[in-house]
């Protein structure tokens, strides 16, 4: 088992390095832009006095690596913000504060996080179940009419942008048919039933396109496995088609599905931004779009860091799961 422990350690170190590198890139991209960084950071409605404070806060007079060091220090050790009249302490992990609203970025994010997590995790359950199920079905029915129909549906699914599906669902289900009211977020802790009903359409809009991708991948991976020599062995030993598809081919599709799920967390987060905006769900995505529109830089940077953190973490978890699913990876 020491091989597996070593693998976990290497993976953990790699994850930390990746996160640090992302923080460098994010810092450079956002705080070393051409133009008056302090003015941009502070926002268009800042007074010259406030801009000077922000410039001091960002250590703009110092060399780049010192500035980054202060940024990092702020992240891990917390820092103080002076707003002219009072000094506010921002405890670690500190993502800074919005100069436009005076709120701490972490508080903003934590407030919005349950909505986004509800959306993404619920949709993930849906797309894995729908996608893998459809993929298994079409591999099982390969060469028949039902497979062709499934293939056509999944192809159309991959070609429909999230916001188009969402728009259509909303207009048809809530508008024309009036089967559901227009979604309004209800916290799980308040009313679990209403929480689920209100998230049903957002889940569907986000999950359908991902499900289609998963269906295609599952089908391809299973057919790939079905073409392999070991499947021929079990055929030559009288093992029935059901066991071959359900046991051997499906097992072969595990690892690729896990890998794709990790890859798609990034694109799903993008999809979540669209879904939140479309359905007016008060999540991180909607807040990010808002912050981008009003150029509230600290909020944008904080959110990018938090989202990248989650995506990198998801990738690392998927890597470990992949290694569990296919032990040969550890030896490589």
């Amino acid at each position: 088992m020491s091989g597996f422990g070593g693998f976990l350690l290497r993976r953990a170190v790699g994850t930390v390095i990746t996160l640090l590198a992302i923080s460098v890139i994010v810092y450079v991209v956002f705080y070393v832009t051409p133009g008056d960084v302090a003015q941009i950071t502070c926002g268009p409605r800042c007074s010259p006095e406030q801009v000077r404070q922000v410039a001091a806060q960002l250590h703009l007079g110092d060399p780049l690596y010192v500035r980054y060091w202060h940024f990092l220090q702020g992240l891990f050790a917390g820092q103080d913000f002076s707003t002219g009249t009072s000094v506010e302490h921002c405890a670690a992990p500190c993502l800074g504060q919005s100069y436009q609203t005076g709120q701490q970025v972490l508080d903003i994010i934590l407030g919005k996080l349950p909505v986004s997590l509800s959306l993404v995790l619920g949709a993930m359950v849906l797309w894995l179940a729908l996608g893998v199920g459809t993929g298994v079905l079409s591999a099982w029915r390969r060469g028949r009419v039902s497979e062709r129909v499934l293939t056509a549906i999944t192809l159309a699914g991959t070609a429909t942008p999230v916001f188009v599906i969402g728009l259509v669902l909303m207009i048809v289900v809530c508008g024309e048919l009036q089967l559901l009211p227009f979604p309004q977020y209800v916290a799980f802790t308040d009313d679990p039933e209403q929480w689920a009903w209100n998230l049903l359409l957002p889940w569907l809009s986000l999950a359908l396109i991902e499900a289609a991708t998963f269906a295609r991948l599952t089908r391809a991976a299973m057919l790939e496995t079905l073409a392999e020599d070991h499947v021929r062995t079990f055929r030559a030993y009288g093992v029935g088609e059901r066991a071959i598809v359900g046991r051997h081919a499906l097992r072969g599709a595990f690892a690729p599905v896990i890998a794709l799920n990790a890859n798609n967390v990034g694109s799903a987060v993008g999809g979540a931004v669209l879904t939140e905006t479309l359905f007016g769900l008060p999540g991180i995505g909607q807040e990010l779009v808002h912050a981008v529109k009003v150029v509230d830089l600290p909020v944008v940077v904080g959110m990018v860091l938090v989202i990248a953190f989650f995506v990198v973490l998801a990738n690392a978890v998927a890597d470990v799961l992949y290694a569990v699913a296919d032990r040969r990876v550890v030896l490589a």
Partner: protein
Amino acid sequence: MSLVEVTDLTVGFGSLRAVDGLSFDLDKGAALALVGESGSGKSTVAGALLGLHRGTGARVGGTVRVAGTDVQEATEQELRRLRGAKAAMVFQDPLSSLDPYYAIGDQIAEVYRVHTRASRRAARARAVEVLDRVGIPDAARRARSRPHEFSGGMRQRALIAMALACEPDLLIADEPTTALDVTVQAQILDLLHTLRTETGMGLLLVTHDVGVAAESVDEVLVMRHGRAVEHGPVGTVLAAPREPYTRELLDAVPRVDARRTGSPATDEIVLEATGLRREFGRGKRAFAAVDDVSLTVRRGETLGVVGESGSGKTTLGRMLVGLLEPTAGGIRYAGEPHTGVNPAVQMVFQDPVSSLNPRRSVGESIADPLRARGERGEGAEERIRARVTELLERVGLEGAHHDRYPHEFSGGQRQRIGIARALAADPRVIVCDEPVSALDVTTQAQVVALLGELQRELGLALVFIAHDLAVVRQVSDRLAVMRRGRLVEYGPADEVYDSPREAYTRQLLAAVPALDPELAARRRAARGEPAAA
């Protein structure tokens, strides 16, 4: 009633007739080998016995009866009852033939449960029992291992165990030892022999290797282009073949006792390696693929290098031509220290498919060394073209093949093109890395003969790297035996073959299949003794 009755079997794929009117019988407890070169249709026959061509679009005609089941007429269910239970198959590549994701014991248990309705626990116990039967040490523990945790030989044993699980009447072995080293091959063939005598099951062996057939069966059926060429008792067919093709095939088989004749060897040393060492990996995983190897190559001679997989022979070859930098030690060319590639030291590669760029015409590939040397100026193109044409003709191809692409050539022809490309650099040494191991025996003999001719004509020094001891014997003046990166024996070829000093060399030589069934039986008995003790 015979165990297997094949009457007028034809199998067609598209416009190709892989098997064409083949008939044969196999009695209970008897052993028959289908012997043939690639494209002879022998593996297709093996598949047809279990009805494996169903649903693949192949057209199958004639009748096939196996253990009382008419394979053509049988329902899907009857066919499944035949497969594995009455007739079981062992495949060529044991790694890809097992599911990488499940424990070996579970895979055997799965097959057993399909045919017996045994409980999970009983099936697991049966799996351990058969694994133990085929000589897997500590079978109860190893049954929980996955295929990649087994060595090649152990995997083939596991596959044989799976075949034994339901006590079939017939074992079909499709090239069961082709992917294995020669010493492991001998063990697997011995195992098959023992199992056959103990269980009384019939054996149908499919092989390209006449020696493997001589070791294992009572009867052979020689196939060519999907038809039977000759069929009879193994001793008769191998000792006194009636058909010209059988004779041709047997003549082409390299013999381990055939000395090299007419060697143009000299005493002039062209290439000298001292203390070569090459490590791969770093830290705890580092290992030396080649460790402290020193040897010399003289003008006009052939130095044979033999070893099993993992012996480091390919790594050594790549260092000799400068494709790999040694970790320690050095190479002297014509007395001068040399690093990196050197036009005078060329290589012929093993795989005729990957050794030529599929996107460039063969003429362009051969012209590479000429162009790299800087052939320019007035009439350069004409000179290059003339030289390439000359080289193509020299290796037995036509000058008009210049503009063709690799996929238009057979494996043997591609190997000739590879030789022409090596010659284009006007080398003094050619390192041949398994130059004939991917070829059929008749093609093998032709390519070996071509190399010999070129050597005499051009005074070339050859380093001939191979796993096949018989091929190496034919061509070598001196021999180096490698094991785990080290040179275990190094000396004149005849001395090494006739009176090996090292136990490992003796073991290697004893494992080479003999073409004489009686000699094979005696050798098997000799191999069995120390193992039984």
